């Protein structure tokens, strides 16, 4: 063992004084450099100087290296190139479609956000649904079809709303669709209440479906004069059917009084834009079984309700 060690030692370079002192000097130099850089800033000029020199050299080297680096790319078969063209075309089409539908997607997202907020506000579980068909004006009724039916827990006499306010109520439902009678319809009568004075009345549609369609509010107290800009909300029915309480309907825009009638007619502009209906929510009792995700009121709203 000792002999082997000795032989191994003999094979090693004898270390002379100068190379050892060189090592110490270099290690100290390294430590100095690290310290200087650690303290900060002192080596920036050196770094920049080296960069000024090495940067162009790297650029040139990259130019020399690029052809070699590209060698594997020359060996492509025709079929693999065709495959790539097909794949890229498909990707292109997909991306183009995405670009084209970005605005729609963004609006949809905003609507879902609004619906979730509405669920919290009215403290009701909502079934999200899209309007898929509008009834024609020739039928003289304002109805729409939504893509949620009994399978989603929707049945007749449920409140339909969106993130702006009350839309209407469900009048019939199939397995996968439901028909909604809009507020604007002549047959639609909703019990409402003015927010500032708690005066009650009935809101009736006028059978128009245009951007500036309005509702008539007939107040029970004929002597009361409504204020312009006052908000009407639903006062609700027994068991929340057909209308749940506290859903905003619209704003008072004009007040008419005629001596012929015992009550005053108040004109209400609905908050909902009926010409651009898309995502709506159907208020269902909690615990409803549904084939889709329900929009539930948020944690904070539930807490407030419990208080």
């Amino acid at each position, binding site marked *: 063992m000792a002999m082997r060690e000795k032989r191994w030692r003999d*094979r*090693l*370079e*004898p*270390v*002379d004084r*100068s*190379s050892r002192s*060189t*090592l110490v000097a*270099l*290690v100290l*130099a*390294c*430590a*100095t*450099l*690290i310290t*200087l*850089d*650690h303290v900060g800033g002192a*080596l920036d000029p*050196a*770094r920049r100087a*080296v*960069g000024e020199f*090495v*940067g162009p*050299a*790297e650029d040139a*080297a*990259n130019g020399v*290296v690029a052809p*070699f*680096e590209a060698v594997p790319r020359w060996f492509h078969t025709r079929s693999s190139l065709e495959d790539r063209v097909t794949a890229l075309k498909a990707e292109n089409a997909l991306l183009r479609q995405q670009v084209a539908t970005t605005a729609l997607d963004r609006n949809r997202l905003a609507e879902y956000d609004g619906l979730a907020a509405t669920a919290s506000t009215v403290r009701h579980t909502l079934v999200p649904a899209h309007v898929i068909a509008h009834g024609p004006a020739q039928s003289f009724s304002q109805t729409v079809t939504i893509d949620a039916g009994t399978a989603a827990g929707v049945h007749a006499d449920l409140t339909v709303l969106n993130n702006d306010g009350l839309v209407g109520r469900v009048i019939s439902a199939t397995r996968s669709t439901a028909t909604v009678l809009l507020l604007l319809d002549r047959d639609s009568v909703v019990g409402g209440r003015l927010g500032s004075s708690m005066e009650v009345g009935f809101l009736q549609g006028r059978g128009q479906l245009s951007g500036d369609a309005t509702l008539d509010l007939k107040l029970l107290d004929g002597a009361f004069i409504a204020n312009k800009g006052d908000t009407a909300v639903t006062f609700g029915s027994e068991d929340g059917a057909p209308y749940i309480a506290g859903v905003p309907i619209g704003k008072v825009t004009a007040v008419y009084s005629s001596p012929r009638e015992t009550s005053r007619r108040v004109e209400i502009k609905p908050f909902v834009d009926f010409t651009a209906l898309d995502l709506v929510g159907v208020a269902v009792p909690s615990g409803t079984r549904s084939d889709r995700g329900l929009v539930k009121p948020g944690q904070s709203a539930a807490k407030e309700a419990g208080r």
Partner: protein
Amino acid sequence: MSLVRGFLALLLLLVAVLLQVTFFPHVAWHGVVPDLALLVVVAAGLTRGPQFAAVLGFTGGLLLDLAPPADHYAGRWALALVVVGFVVGRIRPPGQGSRPEPVMVVAAAAAASFLGTSLFALSGLVLQDPVVSVPDMLQVILVALVWDVLLTPLLVPPMMLLFRRTEPARVSLA
């Protein structure tokens, strides 16, 4: 003459560093490239001894520390390569013109790669330069080791020949 030799060594280092940052990233495995500068220092150590290799290691390390993509504290690679150069220089077989066996060259390169990358990583740990976990570090060190061992038979013998050709007559110390 010694100026020309020094310039030649510097040129070799520069080419090594340039290849390391321009060509090898295209063939890198998990982003790890072979340490060409380290192999230059190994070749120098095996032919020219600890003093020359340490100085060359310092120069090459400094180049790696200051050349553009680098953003670590300057001096870390220099420290690692100085130690590598010195250690490899120490295992050089004594005597003018004596050649190490091929197995020894590969073993020296492997040991140098492990030592150099570990030293660099350890200095990073101490300085908390980039904070990297030890398992990640070990993986990088091992991949670099494999790279260096693979390239050693191709690159180190020609470089050793070059260093031997440019070596001034050695004074025997025995």
